[in-house]
């Protein structure tokens, strides 16, 4: 911890620094997975997609080892207050990162299928832009974690609304394409799943940013976040097409 003195037991400091270094390393792998899966989708790079799929194993293993390490710290050191929050937040964040990794892997799988089909104009570029936004949110959330920067974490949470908005737009676009030509349905279904996956990634990043606020303040962020993805609740978004 930057704002407090070191522990009397230096091994405790090493343990806490160890799990925090590991979560940041895991975060780096997940950032790359988002980036590469979106890139492979746009450039139809099946080899890169395959790499993402294979790389997910490393992310899963990191989650497991982080959980074991966190359990060890709890058992042996009985962390309290901010130390306890470090351990708890690392455990929760690793679960979120692992899910983002899975969603990236799923995107990469669909890339392989979509590479065999005709392009739906401009959609993969839009998806890549959306993925890039999420990737930047994750980068900022991890930076906020390192600096215990509550303001930056709040900014990340707010930006998730843009991602939701992009998803709403794509949802309508895909519906339009499918109505125009039923041969588009298969691709559009895959593309829609990808859009939904990226939107879900944004939610996981938001959860990570919330952990940063919890870590920095000891309190859960106040207020209810407005969910901008209204496709499941607003009939107007699906009708009148």
């Amino acid at each position, binding site marked *: 911890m930057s704002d407090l*003195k070191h522990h*009397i037991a230096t091994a*405790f400091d090493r343990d806490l620094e160890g799990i925090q270094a590991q979560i940041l390393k895991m975060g780096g792998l997940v950032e790359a997975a988002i980036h590469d899966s979106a890139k492979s989708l746009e450039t139809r790079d099946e080899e890169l997609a395959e790499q993402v799929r294979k790389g997910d194993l490393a992310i899963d293993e990191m989650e497991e080892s982080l959980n074991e390490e966190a359990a060890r710290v709890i058992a042996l050191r009985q962390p*309290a*207050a901010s130390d306890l929050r470090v351990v708890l937040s690392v455990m929760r964040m690793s679960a979120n990162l692992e899910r983002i990794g899975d969603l990236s892997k799923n995107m990469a799988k669909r890339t392989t299928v979509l590479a065999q089909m005709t392009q739906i104009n401009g959609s993969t570029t839009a998806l890549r832009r959306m993925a890039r936004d999420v990737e930047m949110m994750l980068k900022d959330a991890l930076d906020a974690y390192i600096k215990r920067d509550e303001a930056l974490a709040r900014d990340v949470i707010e930006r998730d609304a843009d991602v939701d908005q992009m998803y709403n737009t794509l949802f309508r676009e895909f519906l339009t394409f499918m109505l125009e030509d039923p041969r588009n349905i298969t691709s559009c279904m895959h593309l829609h799943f990808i859009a939904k996956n990226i939107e879900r990634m944004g939610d996981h990043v938001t959860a990570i940013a919330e952990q940063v606020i919890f870590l920095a303040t000891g309190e859960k962020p106040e207020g209810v976040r407005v969910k901008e993805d209204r496709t499941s609740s607003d009939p107007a978004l699906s009708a009148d097409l």
Partner: protein
Amino acid sequence: MYDAPLRKTDVEANEIKISAKDVQVFYGDNHAIKDVSVELQDKTVTAFIGPSGCGKSTFLRCLNRMNDTIDVCRVEGLIALDGEDIYDKRVDPVQLRAKVGMVFQKPNPFPKSIYDNVAYGPRIHGLAKNKAELDDIVEKALRRGAIWNEVKDRLHAPGTGLSGGQQQRLCIARAVATEPEVLLMDEPCSALDPIATAQVEELIDELRTNYSVVIVTHSMQQAARVSQKTAFFHLGNLVEYGETSQIFTNPVDSRTESYITGRIG
């Protein structure tokens, strides 16, 4: 997914048992307790934590005037039990200590039988009219001390022949025999093994239904386990006082945070 809001303990509604206001303690020129004001609740376990020499034991000893026995010790400020000043000239310290019992760090049974250890207080305070009543008081106290079953067949064996953990529970039984209202415990488990410690902690939790318990402990895990309220002392100041769960998960003062996370000793 968050640990906040923290589980609220049910003690907030309890009445104030001991109220201290602007308490200062001096040992000669040494200012050991500085401006301590605190309200301790009835039927609640309050833990005093802090590094050695922070004043927690000194303050505990003020609550039943144990510091009176030290010549160079001077206590200022107001300490009231149920609203009555315990340092008032009309208060008899012996009567006060019957109401505010104390258990010490090392088990210190009298070199007498188990029975006489417990009967000692009730006898000098004249709480029993006859032998049968005294027997009842002793049994009740030993039961409250959670040691009755272990000693009921050898009540006239010497108290010093018991194990450390049993001796400490005997001392607790002795302290509750005079029907005190407050029980002060100065590191009651520091000489006990983990099993005996767990038994004493379980006992403390049971005692809470009848008494206000104040415990000084060096073990922060113990404070976290047994108390509902925690007070953190540092260099003679009461730094922070609040719900135990709040103190251990989200303390307000950075000195509290440093201490409970093992950064200052």
